[in-house]
């Protein structure tokens, strides 16, 4: 933040928003990392913890909304301050969604473990999660430092996540065709992969918000494409 406001309580209020958001970011990151660990290690206790942590994000999001509305009513913010507050509201809802997606992965842990998973698939999923988590970490850094450059590079890297997700999608499809008994677990894994891909999208949303907060301009709209799975067709392994 630049020079202090003449009214110091205003600065305290804005700082509160930033602090609460970075707390949310920390919780969200932890939930995603833990949910993937729970999935990989079939760790039910960890999955349970992730599920219960989601409440913290819901509460934080609502708190941020309430405070932001109060600041707007009280201070009638302008320019950078206004963008900062609107940005906080948007980022809070992206982080809340990240929590939901982590929780959803955790909920699938039981179902997935009805089958022994091929190492390769699990590693693919872990790799996808690593990328999404890196995006999430970096976008929180970009927010903390209000860096439009970092925000731009984060959005560009989303393509990588989409590519890996698409290849994972193909692999899961192949396993399902090889043995229909895999279908239940693979479908859950597919949702997990999709959830992770969506977490990457939320990181991208946050990057766009950070860019707007920092510069007052919207990032150019030629955004990298979405996932490619809409065009993937099942071909039997023999083909």
């Amino acid at each position, binding site marked *: 933040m*630049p020079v202090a*406001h003449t009214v110091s309580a205003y600065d305290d209020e804005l700082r509160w928003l930033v602090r609460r958001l970075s707390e949310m970011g920390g919780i969200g990151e932890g939930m995603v990392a833990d949910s993937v660990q729970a999935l990989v290690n079939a760790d039910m206790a960890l999955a349970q913890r992730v599920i219960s942590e989601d409440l913290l994000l819901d509460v934080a999001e609502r708190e941020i909304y309430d405070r932001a509305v109060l600041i707007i009513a009280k201070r009638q913010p*302008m320019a950078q301050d206004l963008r900062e507050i609107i940005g906080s509201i948007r980022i809070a809802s992206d982080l809340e969604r990240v929590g939901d997606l982590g929780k959803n992965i955790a909920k699938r842990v039981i179902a997935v473990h009805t089958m022994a998973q091929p190492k390769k698939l699990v590693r693919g999923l872990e790799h996808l999660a690593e990328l999404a988590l890196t995006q999430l970490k970096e976008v929180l850094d970009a927010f903390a430092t209000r860096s439009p450059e970092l925000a731009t590079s984060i959005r560009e890297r989303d393509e990588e996540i989409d590519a890996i997700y698409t290849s994972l999608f193909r692999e899961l499809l192949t396993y399902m065709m090889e043995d229909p008994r895999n279908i239940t677990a693979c479908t859950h894994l597919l949702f997990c992969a999709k959830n992770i891909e969506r977490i990457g999208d939320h990181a991208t949303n946050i990057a766009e918000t950070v860019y707007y907060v920092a510069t007052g301009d919207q990032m150019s709209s030629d955004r990298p494409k979405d996932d490619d799975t809409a065009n993937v067709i099942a071909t039997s392994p023999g083909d």
Partner: protein
Amino acid sequence: MTELPLPVKAAKVNARNVQVYYGQNHAIKDVNIDIPSESVTAFIGPSGCGKSTFLRCLNRMNDTIVGCRVEGRIEIDGEDIYDRRVDPVQLRAKVGMVFQKPNPFPKSIYDNVAYGPKIHGLTRTKAELDEVVEQSLHKAALWNEVKDRLAAPGTGLSGGQQQRLCIARAIATSPEVLLMDEPCSALDPIATAQVEELISELRNQYTVIIVTHSMQQAARVSQRTAMFHMGIVVEEGPTDKMFTNPDDRRTQDYITGRFG
């Protein structure tokens, strides 16, 4: 040398290299600005930065201040208003003003409003004049409060009522340009809303320039905003941009409440 702003289409007022001195005090320093017609332009900036001084240049009110010297060129409709042939009294009928401090004449409420139309011969009959007075008081959101005591002295009104009386007086001559120096500073939120409504109505026909310390008011009523600081215009542009993403650090600090 500062870069001249591009001429705005249908500019009503053009100011070029305007300097104002109060004795040794150089209060306005090389101001260049174009004010478009049929729009509202807001002047903002910290106290003492020269907003009122510059506003007074536009209807030659500074002429009446001893020791005040104005240099540069100010045109309205392409005509130099400081030309020797221009009659300042005629100019002020065309360029009306609402002052920062309400200054009703020591006359009745009716006469305060009727004064301008009378001396400029804008009405022919008493009925016409009555009509102008009533309309002007309506527009200034004062009619209901004074309709039963039009003969009472204007100075007997409350501060906020006096301010609205001065607005009624200023608009009674249907000026082409209306200069408003903090017209709402003494008004409650309801009267403020009514005056803002009046301003947006006036904008369809006239050129309105408003000085205000309320950033929200400037953002609400104006299409363009100029930021003054220590006698210079540091930034001028579309209001939407000025209040969401200004270019100048000083504008940013001022509108966000960071000026020390």
